């Protein structure tokens, strides 16, 4: 809004907007003063007698009185207008106050709304974070699971494709399980043992089942058919040098195994002259598979 413009050349404006009462009011002061000054300066005896006789004194006094009365009337009119104007201004102020009150209330509402929105946003953020974490974990778990599955398929495909044909079935079993233990399958299995034992158990059961399937194929037996230990331990390595390298590698890899708690692994890797006491001399594919899974995946 443009600022209020105040016209300086008001006398020029007065030609258009004359207000008689303002002129009478302001100019009446000069008129009254002129008469009063004249009265004061002409108070000699003869002058007073002459002015009294001629009636000038009375007329002059009348002029003064009338000017003063006009002045008072002008002041009253002005005061009345001023009072009206002040009243208008006051009403305007009231409206401004009302408007400010409305704005204040709206600002309060907005502040509350804003605070509530912020709280909701914070809660949403927490939920979202949690959800994202969950999803992230889930994706991670799916990823690990997928990788574990791929590894599982890969090692069993490798076994099935005959890549480990130089080794005895139990050594194949050990090499396969050891690779899984140190790979993605082992990671997933260990993490699930801490969080979800049922799933870990299922994974190990599946693993044992795959081993059983592979071992039964190798030995041409059924899962529960017990056969002599040699069926599981016979090597097919022809090269002596390769056999020596593998024996050392197996010794090294399985040096953690003890005869009593890990009879199958100990026998497979350390190849003792005297077999451990707890190692069954005849056993089924099921027994071999479950024992090997248990010894390798449940070791400390």
């Amino acid at each position, binding site marked *: 809004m443009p600022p209020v413009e*105040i016209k300086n050349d*008001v006398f020029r404006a007065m030609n258009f907007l004359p207000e008689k009462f303002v002129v009478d009011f302001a*100019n009446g002061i000069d*008129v009254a003063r002129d008469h009063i000054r004249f009265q004061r300066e002409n108070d000699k005896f003869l002058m007073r007698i002459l002015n009294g006789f001629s009636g000038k004194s009375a007329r002059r006094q009348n002029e003064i009185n009338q000017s003063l009365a006009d002045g008072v009337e002008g002041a009253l009119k002005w005061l009345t207008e001023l009072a009206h104007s002040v009243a*208008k201004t006051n009403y305007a102020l009231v409206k401004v106050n009302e408007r400010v009150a409305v704005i204040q209330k709206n600002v309060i509402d907005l502040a509350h709304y804003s605070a509530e929105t912020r709280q909701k946003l914070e809660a949403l953020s927490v939920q979202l974070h949690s959800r994202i974490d969950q999803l992230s974990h889930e994706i991670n778990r799916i990823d690990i699971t997928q990788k574990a599955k791929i590894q599982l398929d890969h090692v069993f495909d490798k076994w099935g494709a005959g890549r480990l044909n130089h080794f005895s079935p139990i050594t194949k079993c050990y090499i396969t399980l050891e690779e899984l233990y140190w790979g993605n399958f082992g990671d997933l299995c260990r993490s699930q043992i801490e969080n979800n034992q049922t799933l870990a158990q299922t994974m190990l059961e599946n693993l044992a089942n795959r081993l059983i399937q592979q071992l039964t194929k190798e030995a041409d037996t059924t899962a529960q058919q017990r056969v002599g230990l040699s069926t599981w331990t016979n090597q097919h390595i022809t090269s002596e040098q390769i056999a020596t390298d593998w024996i050392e590698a197996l010794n090294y890899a399985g040096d953690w195994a003890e005869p009593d708690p890990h009879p199958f692994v100990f026998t497979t890797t350390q190849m003792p002259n005297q077999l451990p006491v707890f190692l069954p001399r005849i056993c089924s594919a099921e027994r071999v598979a479950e024992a090997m899974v248990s010894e390798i995946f449940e070791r400390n």
Partner: protein
Amino acid sequence: MEKLKVGLVLSGGGAKGAYQVGVVKALSELGAQVDAISGASIGALNGAILASSPSLAEGAQRLEEVWLKLAQSSPLVVKMPKYFNLLAIAGLNIQGLRYLDQIFKFITNSRGKKLPNWLSQWAGVSEALSSGALSHDPLHQLMDKYLNADALISGLPLYISVYRSHGALSDIFSCVMAEIGIKNTEKSEFLHIQSLAKEEMKSALLASAAIPLLFAPQQVNNQIYSDGGQGGWEKMQGNTPITPLLKAGYKMIIVTHLCDGSMWSRHDFPDATILEIRPTQQSISRGGEISDLLGFDSSKIPSWIEQGYTDTHQCLEKIIKATQARHELRTSEKAVIDSEKAFISLDRQMENAMRRLV
């Protein structure tokens, strides 16, 4: 809005008319506009110069030039031969002074009539009195130099007051009677200068300023007129001639007075907006009424011009401030109302916006 017509009244007062120079100068500086002028005596002469000027500012300049010249050389020149004649008659017939009372009685009882033959021994006195002690020649010369009749005809409307003379002594006597409150003088008449024949304009102006005994009355429209300031003496009806302006429809009148405590009353004209400029801070009289009336000298005129200028500024300052205050009040009041209108739409918008939050 229709523009208001502003009239300017220039009262009579002899040499104190210099005061009006300052008044006109100040009015011009303050941007006042004058549409018509009315003057009496010296006010009529000032008014003629002003009315024939192209603008108020130019008029103020011309007036100042004339009055500063008057301060250097007075326009009052005694008509020596006639005056000596008058003095000789008075001296030779000193015993005849006892007849003076009879002369006054005659004058008061037979206004307008010529002196009878039995007063033929006073013929010289009569002639000397009727033709005035002072010469009109200097005034004629000034008017010839500074007053252009053609410019006056096409200039602002000018009204002057004249008093129908009944002879110098009679006129003086009437004024004395009015002054002591016994009987008011007859009312002055007003002449619209532009309505007069060109050759009568100067006579009319001289008539308005023809102080009895000092200047000879003038014949205008087959009437003998003298100083217009004499009419309606008690309320200065002739000396402060506002009436012709009011009759011509001017509602805003600026009135200048040349005497202290003028008995002219604004309350006699309730329908007009009147702005009186009266000598305020100091008395306008410098050496007594009669002395000031004829005091065309360099010691007084510049101070009167200055006083008129100062008084006008001080007088108008009150009006200007008061009017300005009211103007500001109204403007600010309107601004408050206007600003409120602007908020109506905003209020609605805010209400709608807040409703959306619910």
